[in-house]
């Protein structure tokens, strides 16, 4: 992409951890969309090392401002810290579209910025999974929640969604701890919880990587038949576990589509169509049945 045609808009997709399967899928979706519409826009895809690397993501936005792109589609690693730099991008005449993780409304207001959000409602998704789980449990059953990195907005939303569903169902949340989105941390925490609460009935994990760790812990404790596991993201690795029934359900936020929605929205805005309004993307419950 050395030569740039004057009329072709340049779009930057700034994601979180490219090492994370979810964003990997998102990236691939965007790239294949770009391949099909190569005549319409140029695409740069960048990401950060891990989701804690917020400063690096700010740097990347600045980098894209320096590169004079026309639009930025961003999945912010922090819903507050990225607002000022995105505002700067808008001041530089760049169209900004927010995907995946919604910017904090208060900060947007403080900065006087209007950035449209295209993405799923994580809380709703988590509630969906939680309700499906609740249908398999009885009130006062003990459940545990494995959270994402503290401070991660979508993680917090998912926790809230799980809690909503569990409360409505009358379940007893005995513990809610973070495992930093990581398989082995989740494994350790769930192992401990399974031991501490012998009659635990379910573990709700804020992502599928942690669900994998939870499944392994439960299997090691020999309680595969007693404890249900719920995940989020629908990564490739959990599909067989869904089939085998080791994971009850997960939520698909259509990562591959998410970036495409964002890019299409940005293209629309560049053409000057419509006012920036949020657009919610679907979240779907995935269970053994839906896989078939």
């Amino acid at each position, binding site marked *: 992409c050395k030569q740039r045609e004057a009329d072709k808009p340049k779009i930057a997709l700034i994601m979180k951890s*490219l*090492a*994370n*399967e979810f964003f*990997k899928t998102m990236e691939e979706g965007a790239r294949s969309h770009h391949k099909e519409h190569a005549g319409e826009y140029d695409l740069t895809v960048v990401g950060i090392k*891990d989701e804690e690397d917020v400063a690096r993501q700010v740097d990347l936005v600045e980098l894209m401002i320096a590169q004079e792109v026309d639009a930025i589609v961003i999945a912010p690693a922090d819903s507050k810290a990225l607002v000022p730099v995105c505002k700067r991008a808008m001041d530089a005449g760049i169209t900004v579209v927010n995907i995946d993780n919604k910017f904090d409304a208060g900060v947007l207001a403080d900065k006087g910025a209007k950035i449209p959000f295209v993405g799923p409602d994580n809380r709703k998704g988590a509630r969906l999974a939680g309700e499906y789980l609740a249908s398999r449990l009885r009130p006062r059953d003990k459940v545990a929640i494995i959270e994402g990195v*503290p401070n991660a907005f979508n993680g917090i939303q998912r926790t809230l969604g799980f809690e909503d569903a569990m409360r409505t169902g009358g379940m007893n949340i*005995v*513990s809610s*701890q*973070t495992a930093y989105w*990581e*398989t*082995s941390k989740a*494994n*350790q*925490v769930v*192992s*401990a*919880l*399974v*031991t*501490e*609460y*012998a009659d635990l009935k379910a573990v709700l994990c804020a992502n599928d*990587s942690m669900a*994998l*760790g939870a*499944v*392994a812990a439960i*299997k*090691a*404790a020999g309680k595969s038949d007693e404890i249900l596991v719920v995940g989020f993201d629908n*990564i*490739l*690795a*959990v*599909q*067989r*576990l869904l089939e*085998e029934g080791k994971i009850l359900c997960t939520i698909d936020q259509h990562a591959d589509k998410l970036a495409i929605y964002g890019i299409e929205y940005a293209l629309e805005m560049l053409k000057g169509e419509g006012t920036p309004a949020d657009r919610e993307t679907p979240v779907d419950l995935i269970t053994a049945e839906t896989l078939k």
Partner: protein
Amino acid sequence: MRMIIEKRTAGLPAFVTDYLGMALALAGLIVYFGIKADNFFTLTTFRMIANQIPDITIIAVGMTFVLIIAGIDLSVGSVMALAGAVLGVCLVRFNLPLPAAIAACLAVGIVCGLANGFVVIRWRLPAFIVTLGMLEIARGGAYLVTDSRTVYIGGPVEVITDTSILGLSLPFIIAVVIVVMGQVVLSRTVFGRYLIAIGTNEEAVRLSGIDPAPLKLGVFVLCGFLTSVAAVIHTARMSSANPNAGYGLELQAIAAVVIGGTSLMGGRGSVVSSFFGVLIIAVLGTGLAQIGAQEPTKRLITGCVIVAAVILDHYRHRIRKGGGMGKN
């Protein structure tokens, strides 16, 4: 260290005083959590811990050796991920039989260790920075091999964790055997003696007509190899190969080894003590999770326990030696 100043221990036998500080710290934690948590002091908890620690234990053994020659290996976490990734891909994508896949996995660890050792020795560079480079490289490799996706393996690899002898899981037995062998090698063999000597004064060793290079290379290779053994066990335990596995593991392993009293300056260390270090960290992690501590509390307590453990170790040495020397 232990075997060398044995004679100087007054009163209690060396074995007891050596591990006394560690054992006390461990006992303290167990009692505390036993009281605070409902089901901590149960066989299940201990079986569960035994289940979880084999991989980190094996890595801690390798790290002990590296630290003894005054080196360090920051790449263990990434190398474990890379080796595990190769194992997973061999099994799932290439449908290789388990032994072949394991062989490939171990080869990865050995090659990484060789690369670390070669660069450190050939250009006389600090191991810290070389293995930091390897940390990045191996992690990149792990993403590449798995295409940044967790590879679910399931059955083919679970046989490893499912095998158990006399109620103990195979990984745990392997880990214990490696700890015992490591300790024996370090304290009783020519190889171990040379390593301690190199860590104490490499120049004097060289001038005694012993070439430190192959010995040091051997240690890095050993560490890489043990890391890949840990990778097999870790992958089996998770039933899947995750390219993000072992993130931050290096600091955890070093913490365990140093809590066990091994010196970062080289020349002093014990594999069994490192095992105690691993146990302390594992018990702490499990205990805190069982009492449902919140993240900030967890962090604060973990930090304090790490520091407290080494301070305790300081006093243990004081008791043994009656003060003196000790350039940190």
